[in-house]
C-alpha cells in the first residue's frame, strides 16, 4: 500500500494557470447575480441560514406558548391564537427547520468531505432551496394574519376536513408541506447519487466517512418515508377541495387512514432528522479524541439498522386508537429493536472518548456532544417507556411525551447542530467562533433545556395533556409549569448569545487555520470555490492522519483531475461500491432558469391555495417552461471526447445508460413513485378491510366489463413496445429520422388514452368519486397514473424537440433514456393497478 503514496497520480509539477482557470470556472456570481449561484458552499449557506432562521422564529413561538402556560388560567394568548401557534411551531420545527437543516449540512459538507467539486445536480439543489425559502416564508407568515393552520402539526382528520376546519388555514399547512416534500425529494436524489457516485477514487463504501453514510441512509429513508405523507396530503387536499371521502366514516372512509399514512412518514422522520446528527457526532468525537472511531462498522450497522427498524414503529403513535392488541404488540417489539442501534452508537462514542490520546479535548463542540449524549440517552430511554403499550396508555398525548421528544429532538439534533456550527464554521466562513462565549452558550442551553423539559415528565404523569392553551390551578401542575417557562427563557438566552456571537464572528478577519481541530477527513484539505485543487486518491478512513503530506500533494495538483480538461464545471464519477473512476460528469453553472422555476412553482402552489386558479395555472406554465429551458442545456453529448485525469487514466466525458448519474437519479425518482404507489395500494386495501360494504358489487356499482381493463392493458404494453422501438431507431449523430419521433408521440398519447379509458370505464358504470371511499380510491388510482402520464407527455415533447433540433441521437441520448425508463415504470404501475382495481374486488367477492 505504501508504494501508492509515493507514486502519485500526477507526480510532475503542475502549472498555476490551472488554478486560475478553476477559479474562473467555479467563480461565484457577483452582486445581485449571486441569486443565480449554484456552488454548494453558497447555496448550502443560504439553506442552513434559512433553516436556522425558521428555528429562531419557531423558537419565539415556543416562548410565547411557555409564557401563556407559566401560570394557570392565563389569557396572555387567546385560545385560537395558541392553537395556531402550537401548530405552526411544530410544523416549522419539523418541516422547515429540522429536515432542511440536516439536508443543508449535506449540501454544504458532503462535496468537501468527498473531495468532489460539487454535488452532481447543482441546479436541482438550488431549485429545491429557493422553492423552500419562498414557500417556507409564506407559510410561516400566515401566523401574522390569522390564516395559520390550527389542526396541530399532525393534522388529524376529521378535524382538518372542511366541515371542522373551514377557511384556508388547513390548506396553508398542506402548502407548506408541499414545498418541503419537493425539496426533500430533490435533496434525496442529490445525496443518493452524490454519496454513491461522486466519492474520490479509492474511497470504497466501507471507507466512507460516517457522516456520508448517515446522509446516504437519510436520503434512502426520505425515498421511502416521504411518499406516504405526499399521498396523505394529496388525499386530504382532494377531500377538502372535491369531497372525495377518503377519511369520512359515514361514506366508508376512515379517519385512521390519515394516521397510518402520516405516521408511516412521521416516525421515520424523527430518525431522518436524528441519523445525520448522529453522523456529525461520529465525525467530531474522533477528532476531539485524536484517534479513529472505535467500532466504525458497528456504527454503520447501527445507522442501517435504525433506518430499517424506524419503518416498523409507526403504529406506536396509535397505541390508544383501539387497534387490536396483537398489532400493537408487533410495533412495541419493533420499538424495542430500534433502541439497540442507538445503544451501539452511544457506547461506541464512549469507547472512542475513553481511547483518546492525551485526554478527550474539551472544546465547545465536545461540550455540545457530551450534552447531546446525556440528553439523548434520557430521551431514548423515555422512548423505550412510551414504546411499552400500557405505559403509553397513560403518557400518550401528555407533557411526558412533550418532554420525551424534545429530549430526543433538541438533544439528538439541535445540540449536534450547534456543535456542528462551532466545529465546521472555519470550513464555511474561514472563522472560528469564540470558545469563551461558547462555554456560556453551552451551559445556558444545556441548563435551560433541562430546567424546561425535565419537569414536563412529571407534569405529564400528573395528568396534563398536550396542546392545551390553559389549565386550571390546583391540579399539581402550577409550579412545574412555571419552572419549565423559566427554563425555556434560559435556553433562549443561550441561543441569543450564540446568534450574537455568530454575527460578531463575521466582523473579525477570516483567519482560521486550515485544519483547526486536527481532523482526519477530506473536508479539511485546502479548499477554494472549486473544492480541492486535485481529487485525492483515498486508501483509508482518515486520510489526513495517515498521510500528513496529503494537503500539499492535493494543493500541488498531484492527485486526480488537477485541472479543468473540459473547460467547464466537472467532477469525477466513480463506481458505487469500490469507487473506481468511471467518467467525468459535466455540470451546469449559475443560471436563472432554476430560480425562475422555483419562484413560479412556489407561486403556483400559493395561488392555488388561495383559490386563484387562472393566475396559478399561468405560473405553473411558466415554471414548467423554465424547467424545460433548464433541462435543454443539460445532456451535453460526447463532444469533448476522453480526458486524462492522472495515472494515465483516460475517462470519457459523457455517459448514458445504466451507469450514468442521470439514470441513477431517475431510478431514485422511480423508487419514490413506487413507494407512493405502495402507499396507495396499502390505503386501498386498508379501506377495504375497514369498509368492504362500499366496494364494487356491494354498496357500489359493479365493475366495468373485462373488455375495459384488457384494452387498457394492451395500450400500455403496446406503448412500451413503441418506446423500445424508438430507442433502437434513434438516428446516427448528425442525421434526422422521423420514425422515432412518431413512435415517441404515439407511445405518450397511448398512455394518456389508457388513463382516460380507465376513468371512462368506471364513469359509465355509474361509479362516482364523491359517493364512497371505494369510488374515491378507484379514481385516485387514475389521478396518480394521470399525473405520471402528464409528466411523460411533457418529457416526450421535450425529446421530440431535441430530435428535431438534432440534439438527440443514438449516442447523445440521456433525455430519451430517462423518458423510456420512466415510461416502462408507469406502464408497469398501470398494469399492477388494473390487477388491483379490476381483479381484487372480483377475487375478494
Amino acid at each position: 500500500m505504501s508504494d501508492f503514496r509515493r507514486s502519485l497520480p500526477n507526480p510532475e509539477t503542475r502549472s498555476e494557470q490551472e488554478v486560475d482557470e478553476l477559479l474562473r470556472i467555479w467563480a461565484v456570481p457577483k452582486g445581485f447575480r449571486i441569486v443565480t449561484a449554484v456552488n454548494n458552499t453558497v447555496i448550502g449557506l443560504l439553506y442552513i441560514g434559512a433553516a436556522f432562521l425558521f428555528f429562531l422564529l419557531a423558537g419565539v413561538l415556543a416562548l410565547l406558548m411557555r409564557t401563556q402556560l407559566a401560570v394557570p388560567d392565563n389569557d396572555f394568548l387567546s385560545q385560537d391564537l395558541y392553537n395556531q401557534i402550537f401548530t405552526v411551531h411544530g410544523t416549522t420545527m419539523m418541516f422547515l427547520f429540522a429536515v432542511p437543516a440536516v439536508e443543508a449540512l449535506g449540501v454544504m459538507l458532503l462535496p468537501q468531505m468527498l473531495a468532489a467539486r460539487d454535488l452532481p445536480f447543482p441546479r436541482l439543489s438550488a431549485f429545491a432551496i429557493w422553492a423552500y425559502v419562498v414557500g417556507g416564508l409564506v407559510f410561516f407568515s400566515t401566523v401574522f394574519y390569522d390564516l395559520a393552520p390550527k389542526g396541530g402539526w399532525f393534522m388529524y382528520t376529521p378535524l382538518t376536513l372542511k366541515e371542522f376546519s373551514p377557511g384556508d388555514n388547513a390548506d396553508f399547512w398542506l402548502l407548506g408541506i408541499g414545498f418541503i416534500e419537493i425539496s426533500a425529494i430533490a435533496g434525496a436524489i442529490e445525496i443518493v447519487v452524490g454519496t454513491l457516485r461522486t466519492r474520490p477514487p479509492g474511497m470504497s463504501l466501507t471507507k466512507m466517512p460516517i457522516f456520508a453514510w448517515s446522509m446516504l441512509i437519510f436520503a434512502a429513508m426520505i425515498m421511502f418515508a416521504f411518499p406516504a405523507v405526499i399521498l396523505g396530503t394529496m388525499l386530504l387536499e382532494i377531500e377538502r377541495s372535491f369531497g372525495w371521502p377518503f377519511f369520512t366514516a359515514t361514506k366508508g372512509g376512515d379517519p385512521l387512514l390519515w394516521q397510518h399514512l402520516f405516521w408511516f412518514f412521521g416516525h421515520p422522520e424523527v430518525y431522518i432528522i436524528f441519523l445525520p446528527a448522529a453522523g456529525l457526532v461520529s465525525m467530531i468525537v474522533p477528532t476531539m479524541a485524536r484517534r479513529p472511531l472505535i467500532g466504525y462498522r458497528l456504527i454503520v450497522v447501527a445507522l442501517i439498522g435504525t433506518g430499517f427498524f424506524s419503518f416498523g414503529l409507526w403504529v406506536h403513535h396509535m397505541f390508544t386508537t383501539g387497534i387490536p392488541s396483537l398489532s400493537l404488540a408487533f410495533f412495541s417489539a419493533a420499538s424495542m429493536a430500534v433502541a439497540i442501534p442507538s445503544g451501539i452508537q452511544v457506547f461506541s462514542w464512549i469507547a472512542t472518548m475513553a481511547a483518546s490520546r492525551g485526554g478527550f479535548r474539551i472544546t465547545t463542540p465536545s461540550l455540545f456532544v457530551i450534552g447531546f449524549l446525556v440528553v439523548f440517552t434520557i430521551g431514548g430511554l423515555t422512548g423505550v417507556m412510551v414504546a411499552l403499550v400500557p405505559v403509553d396508555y397513560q403518557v400518550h398525548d401528555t407533557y411526558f411525551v412533550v418532554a420525551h421528544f424534545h429530549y430526543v429532538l433538541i438533544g439528538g439534533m439541535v445540540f449536534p447542530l450547534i456543535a456542528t456550527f462551532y466545529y465546521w464554521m472555519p470550513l464555511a466562513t474561514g472563522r472560528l467562533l469564540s470558545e469563551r462565549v461558547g462555554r456560556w452558550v453551552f451551559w445556558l442551553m444545556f441548563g435551560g433545556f433541562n430546567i424546561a423539559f425535565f419537569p414536563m415528565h412529571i407534569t405529564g404523569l400528573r395528568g396534563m395533556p398536550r396542546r392545551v392553551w390553559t389549565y386550571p390551578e390546583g391540579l399539581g401542575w402550577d409550579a412545574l409549569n412555571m419552572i419549565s417557562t423559566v427554563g425555556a427563557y434560559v435556553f433562549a438566552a443561550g441561543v441569543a448569545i450564540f446568534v450574537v456571537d455568530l454575527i460578531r464572528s463575521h466582523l473579525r478577519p477570516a483567519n482560521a487555520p486550515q485544519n483547526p481541530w486536527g481532523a482526519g477527513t477530506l473536508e479539511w484539505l485546502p479548499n477554494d470555490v472549486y473544492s480541492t485543487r486535485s481529487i485525492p486518491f483515498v486508501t483509508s478512513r482518515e486520510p489526513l492522519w495517515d498521510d500528513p503530506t496529503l494537503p500539499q500533494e492535493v494543493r500541488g495538483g498531484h492527485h486526480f483531475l488537477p485541472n479543468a480538461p473540459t473547460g467547464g464545471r466537472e467532477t469525477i464519477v466513480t463506481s458505487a461500491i469500490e469507487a473506481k473512476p468511471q467518467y467525468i460528469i459535466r455540470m451546469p453553472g449559475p443560471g436563472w432558469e432554476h430560480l425562475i422555476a422555483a419562484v413560479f412553482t412556489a407561486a403556483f402552489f400559493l395561488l392555488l391555495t388561495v383559490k386563484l386558479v387562472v393566475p396559478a395555472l399561468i405560473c405553473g406554465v411558466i415554471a414548467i417552461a423554465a424547467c424545460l429551458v433548464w433541462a435543454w442545456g443539460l445532456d451535453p453529448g460526447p463532444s469533448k471526447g476522453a480526458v486524462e485525469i492522472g495515472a494515465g487514466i483516460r475517462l470519457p466525458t459523457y455517459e448514458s445508460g445504466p451507469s450514468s448519474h442521470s439514470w441513477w437519479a431517475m431510478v431514485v425518482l422511480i423508487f419514490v413513485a413506487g413507494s407512493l404507489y405502495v402507499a396507495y395500494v396499502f390505503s386501498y386495501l386498508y379501506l377495504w378491510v375497514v369498509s368492504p360494504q362500499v366496494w364494487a358489487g356491494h354498496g357500489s356499482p359493479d365493475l366495468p366489463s373485462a373488455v375495459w381493463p384488457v384494452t387498457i392493458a394492451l395500450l400500455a404494453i403496446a406503448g412500451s413496445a413503441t418506446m423500445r422501438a424508438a430507442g433502437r431507431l434513434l438516428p446516427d449523430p448528425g442525421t434526422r429520422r422521423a420514425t422515432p419521433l412518431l413512435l415517441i408521440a404515439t407511445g405518450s398519447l397511448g398512455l394518456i388514452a389508457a388513463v382516460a379509458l380507465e376513468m371512462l370505464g368506471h364513469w359509465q358504470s355509474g361509479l362516482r368519486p364523491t359517493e364512497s371511499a371505494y369510488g374515491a380510491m378507484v379514481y385516485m388510482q387514475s389521478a396518480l397514473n394521470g399525473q405520471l402520464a402528464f409528466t411523460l407527455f411533457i418529457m416526450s415533447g421535450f425529446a421530440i424537440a431535441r430530435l428535431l433540433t438534432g440534439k438527440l441521437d443514438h449516442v447523445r441520448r440521456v433525455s430519451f433514456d430517462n423518458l423510456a425508463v420512466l415510461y416502462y415504470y408507469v406502464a408497469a404501475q398501470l398494469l399492477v393497478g388494473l390487477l388491483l382495481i379490476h381483479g381484487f374486488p372480483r377475487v375478494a367477492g
Partner: protein
Amino acid sequence: MMKPGRIAAVHVPLLVITGCSGIQSALQPEGREAVELHGLLLASTGFSAAITLLVLALIIVAMWGPRSWRHRLAHEWLIFGGGIILPVVLLTCLLVYGLVTMDAGASRAARAEGPGITIVGKRWWWQVVYTSTDGERVVSANELRLPVGRPVTLRLESDNVIHSFWAPKLAGKLDMIPGRTNTLTVEAIEPSISRGQCAEYCGGAHALMSFYVVAMPAQDFDAWLEAEAGPASDPQNTAARRGSQLFQENGCGGCHTIRGTEATGTIGPDLTHVGSRHSLAAATLPNDAQAFSRWITNNQHIKPDNLMPVYQYLKPEEVEAISVYLEGLDLGD
C-alpha cells in the same frame, strides 16, 4: 392577565374532599387498570434511571477516569456488551412485562358486568349514557359515576372529530373515533372523586373539555342511577318557576333536554339533573347559580368557540331566574 375563578373555583372544594393535589394524576391510581399500569410505569422508570446513571458514569470515566480504567473501556467489547447484549437482555424483560400487562386488559374486559355506559365525545363536552335497571337510556353529561368494585364497560364514540377519553386515576386513555366504538373496561377500587380530560387535540376548546369521575359504593350507585333515571324535579319557588318558563320561551329546549318538560333538544348536554353535577361546561365552571348566569351571558369568553350562543339580550333578573331554576335541577338530596 388572570381570569380569576374560571376553573379554579371548581375543584378547590373538591381538593378538600380528595385531600391531595393529584386529582388527575396517573401516579395515584384508584382504578384496576391504572394500578396495573402504575407498576409497569415504576419498573420502566427505574430501568431508565439505572441506564442513565450507567451512561453518565461511563462518560465520566471515559473523560476523567484513571488511565487504566479508560484503557479498559476503549475497546469494541464495550459496544457489544453495552450496546447489544445488555439492551437485548433488559429490553426482553421489559417487553415481556409490558406485553403481559397489556394482555391483562383482555381478561379485565372479560369480567365486565352489566349493560355498560356509552360516552360520546362532543365539541367540547361529554355525553354520558347509562342504562337503567329496566333498560331505559339515561342520558347525562360531563360526569361519570361508577360503582366501586364492579367492572364496567365504557363504549367510547364520537360523531364529530377524534377525542380521547382519559381519566388517569382510573385507567389509561382510549380514543373516540368517528365510525368506531372503542371499549374500555374500568373498575374503581375505592370510593373517590377524580378528574379526567380529553387527551386528543380536538380543535377549539380542547383545553376546556374535562369531566369528573365519581366512584361510589355499588348500592349507592344503584340508588343514584334510579334517581338519575327519573324526570327533573319541579321548580321549588317563584324564581325557579319563572326561570323554567323563560327557559322554554327562549328556545333553550331546542338544544337541551330536561326530561319531564317540553325541552327535548339533543345538541347540547342533557340538563335533567344538571344541578346535581360537580361542574358546569365540562369541568370549566363550578356548579352554582352565579356560574350559570355567567355561562348564559358570557360563555364565549369563558370557553371560546363552544357551540352555544351568548344570551346577552336577557335582562339580569331573567338570567338570574333561569340560573336558579337550573341550579335547582338536582336529585333532591
